[in-house]
């Protein structure tokens, strides 16, 4: 086990890609689910169901895509996913959930 071998603590990482204008909705859900911090990567590009998504739009942050990442203990994941599922009933975007490990668990509680 990685956690035992390296002295790390298991956590869950959730990554969300949405339009910049929907980022506030996602971060509100992060906070409501108990996340104490998150990371944002602006102007990401890629290809998906709706074709190619341009990365940097020079004069519009709200329509370009952002990647939001949050790491939190497993007990908060259900709440987080419940909120995100609601968002994705109407908003475009993708969601990835994976196991991860952190060295300072108190930073994420």
């Amino acid at each position: 086990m990685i956690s035992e071998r390296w002295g790390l603590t298991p956590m869950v990482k959730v990554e969300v890609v949405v339009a910049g204008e929907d980022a506030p909705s996602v971060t509100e859900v992060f906070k409501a689910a108990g996340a104490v911090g998150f990371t944002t990567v602006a102007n990401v590009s890629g290809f998906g169901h709706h074709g190619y998504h341009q990365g940097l739009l020079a004069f519009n942050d709200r329509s370009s895509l952002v990647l939001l990442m949050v790491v939190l203990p497993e007990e908060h994941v259900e709440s987080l996913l419940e909120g995100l599922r609601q968002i994705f009933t109407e908003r475009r975007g993708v969601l990835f959930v994976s196991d991860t490990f952190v060295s300072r668990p108190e930073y994420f509680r």
Partner: protein
Amino acid sequence: MNAPSRAAALRAVVDLASDPLPILWPLETAIATNPLWDLRSRGFAGAVSVADRLLGATGYPSDDTLRLAYCEGRITDTDLHSALREYRLSAREEFGVREGPEHFDAAVFNAHHLDGRIDAEVARWCAAFLGGKLPRSSDGFYNAWRHSVSTTLWARRPKAKQLLSRLPPTAAEAAVFCLTLLGIDEHQWRSELTAHLARMPGWAAHAKWRSRWAAPGTPGPALELVDYLAVRLAYATLLGSETSGGSEASGGTARSQTAQSGWRENAPAGLDTIPALAGMDASEKQEIWLRSYEIHYRARLLRALTRQTSSPSQRPPAAQFVFCIDVRSEGLRRHIEASGDYETFGFAGFFGFPVRVHPWNGGSAVDLCPVLLRPTLEVDETPAGGRPASGSALLAAHTGFAGVGPAIEAGRQGEISPYVLAEASGFALGPVAALRTLAPQAFAALRSWVSTKLAPEPRTELNLQGASAPSDDSQALYAETALKTMGLTAGFAPVVVICGHAATTENNPFASALDCGACGAVGGARSARLAADVLNRPRVRQLLRERHIDIPVGTVFVAAEHDTTTDRVRVLDAGSVPPSHARLVENLQEAMSQAGRRLTDERSGDLPGADPSGATSHVSRRSVDWAQLQPEWGLARNASLIVAPRALSAGVDLQRRAFLHSYDPASDEGGLFLETILTGPMVVAHWINAAYYFSAVSPDVYGAGDKAAHNVVAGAGVWQGVGGDLRLGLPRQAVFDGERLYHEPMRLLTVIEAPPTLIDAVIARNAVVEQLVGGAWVHLVCRHEGTWLLKAGDGSWIDLPDGEPPAYPDSAGPVDATLEGLQTSRIGGGQP
């Protein structure tokens, strides 16, 4: 679902529930937006249908407006034929439009049955919170209310006391708690929350701005959507437990119902006498009439552009000017071009530098960019010679002088203080008010003299060097983007004037709506100065040369500002112009002043009560008259956006109705610059266009009402009268001339000179452009190789020979356009 999951789900549902609501920026930065922006994926027709049902908002020009337009020849039979044909293509399939889950019928029903007392209570608390009158405001609206309401008589009622004692500590938990007590399960949350928001769309729109658009750390009490809804639901819970069945509505929905029923009675009659319209529902008929109205303008515009014969001068220009794309710049550009060998360009008025400026006097930072952008550059403004020391005489004078107005205002807002203020200062303020009323220009001159004596405005600089300044590379990158996007990369004149704009008005809560929208609804002088300073820096020019933009050593960039209320244009920082160019800049100042005077003469004929014989003096007086409700027409009658080299429109009188963005398709092979324009400036132009459109066609819901009866509410918005909901949109005086519409409500027509394949590629990779064009929020016409092409609703391109609508009849079938039933006798006659 456990309790934390329910709270997280509620946060998400709150945002979705607010989709049908507009966004209301504070008055200080009154951004014009499309009130249906978050419904745009439904297409224009779908979105206005939702707004009609939920808010009673009319989505089309009134029957009377259209009938009048037909009788005056503003809509012709040919226009109707074309509209019908184009509509049939659109109805086949609208690309970029998708249906969403339908929550609105339940929301409409619920909104009609909510207790009107909730609105009255919540409106009072919102105003008190934003006015800074509630303790613990930093804990958010819900907790500030919970703390303060417990001290009121209302809270002593047993049921209220019991409810308050059980309310959870966070707004999201409280909302879930109340929804549970009300017996509303998760599947009904969204419609219930939408219903609550729809009751007072003004307050909801302010909360939506705070929750979804305000920058983190925006100063002032934060009225968030979830807090607003938690308080509403608490009242709903309590009133539900105290009464059986709700009383009738008294808020926004009641207003909406009136508008709705009035529309439905008046709409179909008279305008559906064409057999080809038989079988269509009311909204389809309205859509065709609106398109007819739009096509008439389009045909005239394209005809004028086709016939224009002026060609660019072969001589190098004596000077170049870069103006904001704002429609008010068009007239000034036309007059400047007519006065000499001058070349003009149009670009978004922040000139490509999304900057946050920290003012020299320690005031709040100012963001100078469209609200679609977050500032990525930070610049300190300093007086020439360095930042004044804390406590310096200059700073103290400015702080003291700037504090006079807010101090008087604070005195007017208190419970007792207005009486004290009147007693203590009435002897002085009375004569001042009399002078201000009887001789506004003299008062303005006196005030200017006093402020110059007591707190002179220092000459300032924007600090572009040093540790806190943006890097040279960063400055060069933004400069490169701006120059390439507007197609100004070679052939630089000895002087390039970068001209921002602002409006001088007095006693006008909506003053910022007349400033530069591309600068975040503030004046454009700082943006112009910043751009000129950056482009004059040798290091930036060196970096630009590496990027194939060679600005000659002999070229100087000079900042200027156009006052759109008075049409005065002044060079800024004239003292910084090198002696070698001083004479030329003096001549340009004179040319701009003359062009401004000609523009004043031109537009004063449209101003209500204007005196054409003394136009300059008249507009000057309007700008300083505190009783003036229409200092200028702003962007009223805006209708189109032209994205093309100036050669396409040079010499054509566009009547100050066109946003003009310079663009050179020859240097944009991949469409990157076109993409920048269509995802940025076109969206801003659409917002402005839609704000004017909906304020005109649905003034009861999306208009701010009569300015004469406005009361400002804590800088958040205005009341029409003394309480209730905040008003949305633009004041009546921005779109109406007396009882008649001055603004012509039409959707934005975007004209682009570029290959259609390039435009299609930009549309395909940008959902926002696809939604606007495919959803008929914006009409798109392409100019390519001498032909005009119209983007149809099914995504195809239709040939428009010489800009005229396609010939009729065609496969769409015959139309009997005998419109005898629409004669003048019916105009204004109520039921036709």
